[in-house]
């Protein structure tokens, strides 16, 4: 009997290998080999504009150059700062939206539809529309502020190093909060309503119930949503490229955008690869810390 079982198992294993092979090939060729190649390229001096220099191995020289490059350090700061500010906002607003969708008795389908639209439209489109709404001349957001004299006559969001972040943040929050809300709503729906009813009978108020029942039980969903959002925010590119192009100067330039400019405009593939590797390391480090500290149980029960 056991001999036959292993024969079936062996057969299954062989089949599994065949079934998994195509996906594995794509992942290897499309992701793992390229990321290794980027890391290797980052150790070389390679400027496509200066082919006579060849492609000498330079060790960590590109990374050393990056550390001394003020544009890199500020891009790093922009990326981390952007993620640290927008993600908590998105989680907070997303939770509010999820609670409303959960408790609303009428119009739930309508709100869900309204939430799905921003999530689904191209990021580039969202960025362009918000860019238009924040326009200095006649933007629907800027014009009323000017009428109320809250901003000066010649105020322009996109020429101030700090103010230029407001449109970027607004577009990103608008576009991604619904995604957070949908994840959290799924979490809310798994909470047994009996728990709330029991607590209510014990005299617990709405706030108390939220703190003692909803939040703890929602924790796994929050952890997952935060991880998704952080990883996405750390690779911020589309919104910054479209809305400000990194400007004024390089005041809103995130790391991905600086890497893109070094690669595709300056053609410094060695240095640009080093910058790309930094983006990768940044997300990787975050993911590692997140899984270690908060997410162990979540990953554990999957495999």
């Amino acid at each position, binding site marked *: 009997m056991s001999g036959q079982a292993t024969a079936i198992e062996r057969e299954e294993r062989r089949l599994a290998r065949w079934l998994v092979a195509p996906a594995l090939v794509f992942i290897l060729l499309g992701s793992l080999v390229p990321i290794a190649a980027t890391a290797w390229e980052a150790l070389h001096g390679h400027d496509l*504009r*200066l082919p006579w220099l060849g492609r000498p191995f330079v060790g960590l020289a590109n990374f050393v150059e990056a550390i001394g490059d003020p544009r890199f350090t500020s891009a790093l700061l922009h990326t981390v700062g952007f993620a640290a500010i927008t993600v908590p906002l998105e989680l907070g607003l997303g939770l509010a939206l999820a609670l409303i969708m959960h408790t609303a008795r009428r119009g739930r389908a309508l709100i869900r539809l309204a939430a799905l639209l921003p999530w689904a439209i191209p990021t580039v489109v969202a960025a362009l529309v918000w860019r238009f709404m924040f326009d200095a001349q006649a933007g629907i957001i800027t014009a009323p502020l000017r009428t109320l004299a809250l901003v000066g006559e010649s105020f322009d969001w996109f020429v101030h190093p700090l103010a230029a972040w407001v449109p970027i943040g607004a577009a990103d929050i608008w576009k991604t909060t619904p995604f957070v809300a949908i994840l959290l709503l799924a979490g809310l729906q798994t909470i047994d309503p009996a728990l709330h009813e029991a607590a209510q009978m014990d005299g617990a108020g709405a706030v108390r119930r939220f703190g003692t029942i909803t939040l703890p039980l929602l924790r796994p969903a929050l952890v997952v949503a935060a991880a998704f959002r952080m990883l996405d925010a750390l690779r911020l590119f589309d919104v910054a490229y479209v809305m400000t192009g990194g400007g004024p100067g390089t005041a809103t330039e995130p790391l991905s955008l600086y890497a893109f400019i070094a690669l595709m405009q300056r*053609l410094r593939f060695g240095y640009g690869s080093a910058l790309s590797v930094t983006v990768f390391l940044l997300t990787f480090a975050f993911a590692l810390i997140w899984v270690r500290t908060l997410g162990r149980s979540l990953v554990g029960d999957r495999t």
Partner: protein
Amino acid sequence: MKCSVRLWLVVVLVAAWATACGERNGTTRLTFSGSALGPEAVVLRRQLLRFGERHPGIEVELRVTPDAADQRHQLYVQWLNARAPDPDVLQLDVIWTAEFAGAGWILPLDPFALDADDFVPAALAASRWRGRLYAVPWFVDVGLLYWRTDLLAAPPRSLSELREAARRLRNAGTTRFGLVWQGARYEGLTTVFLEHLGAFGGGILDAQGRVTVDEPAAIRALTFMCDAVSLDGFVPSSVLTWQEEQTRFAFQNGDAAFMRNWPYAWGLLQDGARSQVANRFAVAPFPAEAEGRPTAALGGAQLAVNAWSANPALAWALVRFLTAPEQMLERARLATQLPSRRSLYDTAELTEALPIPIEQVRQMLDAAVPRPVTPVYSELSEILQVRLHRALSGQQTPEAALREAAREIRALLARSGLASEEETP
């Protein structure tokens, strides 16, 4: 499941069809890319059509590119670096040729014997890289000093004279501004600086390729420019945001006694309907101090052949055709763009075709100085622009600005393996 398999096939076929669509082939097609704006476009289309008539079976397609030079540059970089086989023939700014040649993006043209001796030497020098010819000068542009004949009897013979005249006219209220030039943070600023540099006997790089932009002559040149804006005030500080057109508007409205600009402005300034100064101005070389010489920044366009072109011989034929005397004369007549062939300047046809007096043009061409011919020119110029702009807006002293600029340019040249022997650490 059957139905979805069929659907699958349909989609795959559609994709294949759409891919195939882009690759159909008919007659031999050459593509040409360049700027095509106003009168330039008329001349170009006419000449491309004529080329097609003379070469049956060949169709030349004009690919219009952005008019802003930096945008066109970025697009070219993207195409050529990707090894796209078209456009076959490219219109390059004089300052791009070394960059594209160094990167191996355009073909060396030595094998196609060109009558190189006939071309303006400075323009030809900008077409060469490491001893080989990579482009053919198409038309040349030189920086000119426009001055008002109704306010002065003769053009200033030195920078000091220019300063005195500009100050006098401005302080007397005759004109709002003394002198206007292009001071925004873009390539134009580098060319204006280059002309001041030459006037004081300085340069950006010397003949050996050493950085000389922090030497005393250069500091005197930049100090002159800074003083003109802040101390003497005969150059308005608003030039720090001005490009060619804003300076032309100021001069055209009679607001400025002097203007530094290119030949294209001549025709527009003579248009009595819009210009207040028609027939009341002339041009001269930008004047120099005793230690320097009158210097005109050399601009203009060259034609080059894409290194990945499928038809290099045919592409060369097109370059040859467009740079023939006949076509150059037509361009001079219709678009006021100066021919790059020296022999044409002795002909009656050119005298007739050009609105600017030909003696003056010849004088200017002799004073023409190319910008540094190096594959890293774009980055070099960007470094200079930032530092010049800082000095002009009072954020840095001229000495400090040029010291920083020189340091950054040396680092750039060292990194690119282009530093001269003495300077390599």
